[in-house]
């Protein structure tokens, strides 16, 4: 599903170049899930950005779903994100003007893969049936994140990237949201790469990747 070979990434800063990723290599098989662990500033988000094509690596190979991305143009990345990928962020990023229903369906519609039955199923699983007509600002944080999860899965992505998805939630709701996320991802047969600070959450996933000094140590 995902294959990274010798990926380098640095940022130019006032006090010199920061080598964030320094010859990082790893891979993730289809349907597998991995937790990305590491200190703050270690480059976790940066890695996710590279995989999503939001930023580009200095060097190294990123192969996604069997396709080498080195020749990807902006439009290819956009297509990749639309069709194969989902991003989940700490701050949900729902479209504030759209109802819950429209937010849920948004990415699937963009990808042209809206499936009514799957939609009903997800709505039921996420417990959003009563909230469909609401606007995002009328929801709690946990509810909003559930909508974001639904939106991320409805178009049946091959890979879900989540950056501290429960960072804004209290412990109880974050555990509930996490459980739902891993379960649904597994159901959908997608791969999952999730940044988290919580070892407890990491324990739910198949693999644990520790990012230190720009490289990964993988633990089963």
């Amino acid at each position, binding site marked *: 599903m995902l294959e990274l070979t010798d990926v380098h990434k640095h940022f130019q800063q006032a006090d010199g170049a920061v080598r964030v990723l320094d010859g990082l290599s790893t891979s993730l098989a289809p349907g597998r899930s991995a937790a990305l662990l590491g200190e703050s500033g270690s480059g976790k*988000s940066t890695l996710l*950005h590279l995989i*999503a094509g*939001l*930023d580009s690596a200095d060097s190294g190979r990123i192969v996604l779903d069997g396709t080498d991305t080195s020749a990807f143009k902006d*439009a290819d990345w*956009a*297509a990749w*994100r*639309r*069709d194969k990928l989902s*991003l989940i*962020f*700490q*701050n949900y*990023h729902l*479209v*504030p*003007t*759209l109802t819950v229903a*429209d937010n849920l*369906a*948004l*990415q699937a*519609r*963009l*990808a042209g893969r809206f499936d009514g039955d799957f939609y009903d199923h997800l709505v039921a699983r996420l417990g959003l049936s009563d909230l469909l007509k609401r*606007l995002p*600002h009328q929801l709690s944080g946990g509810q909003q994140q559930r909508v974001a999860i639904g*939106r991320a899965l409805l178009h049946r992505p091959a890979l879900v990237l989540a*950056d501290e998805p429960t960072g804004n939630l209290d412990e109880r709701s974050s555990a509930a949201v996490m459980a739902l996320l891993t379960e649904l991802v597994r159901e959908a047969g997608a791969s999952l790469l999730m940044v988290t600070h919580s070892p407890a959450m990491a324990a739910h996933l198949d693999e644990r990747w520790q990012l230190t000094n720009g490289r990964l140590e993988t633990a089963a």
Partner: protein
Amino acid sequence: MRRLLSVLTRVLLTLLSHYRRHIAQTLFLAIGLVTGVGLWSAVQIINDHARASYSEADQLLGAQASHWVRARDGAGIDPADYIALRRDGFTQLYPILETRLAVNDEPLWLIATDLLALPRSESPLGASGGDWPSLVQPPYQTWYPPDLAADFGIGPGDTLMLDDGRQLPPAALQQQPQQGRRLFMDIGAALAVLQRDHFSYLGVGELSSAETDRLRRALPNHLQLVDNRQRLDLTQLTASLHSHLTAMSLLAFAVGLFIVFNAVRFALHLRRPTLHTLRELGASSRMLSVAVLLEALVWSALGTLGGLAAGRALATLLLPPVASSLQSLYGAVVGTDIQLGWARILLAWGITLVGLLLALAWPLWREAQQNIRQARSASDDWAADRQARRWLALFGLLLAVAALMLHSRMSTVTQGFVVLGLSLFAAAFVLPVWLASALRLVERCLPEPAWKLRWALRDAWAQLPQVRVAMMALLLALTANLGVETLVGSFRSALTIWLDQRLAADLYIQDDSLRLAAFTDHGAAPWLVASHQRNGVQIRWSGRPTLIRGLNTNAPDSRALPLADANEHLQDWFDGDNDWVLANEQVHHLAGVELGDRVQVDTAQGPQAFRIAGFFHDYGSPYFQLYLPYATVERLWPNASPEGLALWLSDAPDAEQQAESALLAAGAQPGDWLNQNTIKRVSLRIFDRTFAITTAMNGLTLSVAGIALLAALLALHQQRLSHYAHWRALGVRYREWLLIVALPLALLVALTGLAALPLGALLSSLLVHDLNVHAFGWTMPLQWQWPPALRLAALTAAVLGLTLLISLWQVRRRLPLALKQLGEDDA
């Protein structure tokens, strides 16, 4: 205290640092201020300048002109009479020759005097230091004010060829006080070059009342002493024109203020975190308010300076056409050297400051009301926008009610403009509610599967709070454009029709001393079908200069007089009944006289009463005018002079040529007569020039609204850039993005344009049916025309397209960075 000041300075500097990092915003704030103040001050400068000129109307070329000496028969002054009066000790008299010339049908005024005879305080040639021998000796000189020379492409030494074939003496770029946009020549030179042997009149400098009496007694019978009341009359007659201009400039100012409002609010909005931090760091909210007010002070000072500079430049551009209109319509001499007074500068600064404070007051107050925590969390304000819209609408309705109430009892031009302003702003304030309701309606009509369209429509709600003010500005600009275009269009077509009816004859003799008998055989000639000799005298009636005209009531053009209204006694008037008169409609609208009313006027035989049989249209005239039978005028005003001889020519192909040869043979000069087409052409040209400033102001106002829109869009996109990055992360294509962002905007603009249609119609109806009547006493049918509306729609679409393109380009440029920062924006 010192500590407080230093904290305040620090706070102010912190706040101001924002503008260095947000150049585009700074630019828009400056543009808004400069254009608003600039447009307003340009008109104020022009008005002030014109009024200053009127107050000099009792001056002629730097000399006092408290009276005129004129010939009773309109024939001008014989130089021998003038010399006799000078030798009799009347050294305050000076000869003036004033005449209208034509160059390529363009009217051009010439004034000539004897500088040595002018009773001026300074030395004969004044400070202008001209070259006296060249001025008075062949080949002479013509002195051109520089701007007029530039208009005609004349340089020093050039000679101008008149339409009658005469050549003016070589040019010098020189001017005399109160020369205005006129040519100046020595009177001896003018007599020679124009082949005249009479002066137009004599100017009379300051005279004691004893000397006035002595002069009155000393004048030969054919001359009379006339008071110069120009100063009063001009101020009164042109008041309406100047209120028109002021109203337009205030509108432009308001539209400029909308940009400022938006920019200031946005700048404040973006700095909310800074403000909160400062508050958290211990700056009191009062200190923050003071700092923001100081910031407003800085901006207002900068805006005023920039605006006045822009206004001055604009005034310099707009003044020549205004000056020449004032000259054509009112005979007002307005020079083109612009002065900017302190009072004006302070006023400009004052209103800018008030405008800025208005823009700042509400958000500041709201900010100060909230405690720190509340303020931090109130981030999604688009939902709160509904509340704001309602308040605005409520306020708008109040304005509308006020406008309605005032309209029912409106009687002056100023009140008219207040009604107009209230209506416009009422509409502008109600606009957001109209936009919201229309959006909701359209949304409801969209089918479920059209999810992109629905998204786009939903996105309108996110845009609305940001572009609301820009839409209001656009509404004002569009409405004003439509309203004024309709007024101008209606007026122009009314004028064209009126000119066609009014100028029925083929030739009009300009030289009032030419008599029909002088160039025909007792009024008969093979080329002549009919003629109409009128006479006239100017009196004062009802506080205004009033023209009494004697007509042959059976002449073809009297029969076809374009009447606004008449009663059954019109026939009596045609029959020459002495009891009935026709009055111009100004008499009806400005003096409140009704059909059948008795009007009493002063005649040489004492006051005499007439009854009104009808009102005729008399466009362009600021005076009252009464039409009586020729013989009646001759009898009641023995000093009435013949003026205006109209000739109808036969169908013979060479009739005009024959007429001209007959005139030339009788000693007339080319230019002493005009044919119908020339008069029409010149009249329409004067009309167009008069409204040139209107069109210019309107165009500028629209572009200011365009700038407001662009500013709002750029700000909006900057604010929403992180949203766009998320959309992009969801896989949204640029096409889709453009659809989602542009469609609602286009819809909002279209809805605003739609609202501008009825409002423009309302405005034009106010202008045509109320304001114009109160201001000038002219009525005309309102003619709604679609082409201007379509033109405006196209123009607006182009402006919208352009602003969208610019903002699209901005977003594309910035999006990659936003994408890289995705997920971090609110950490």
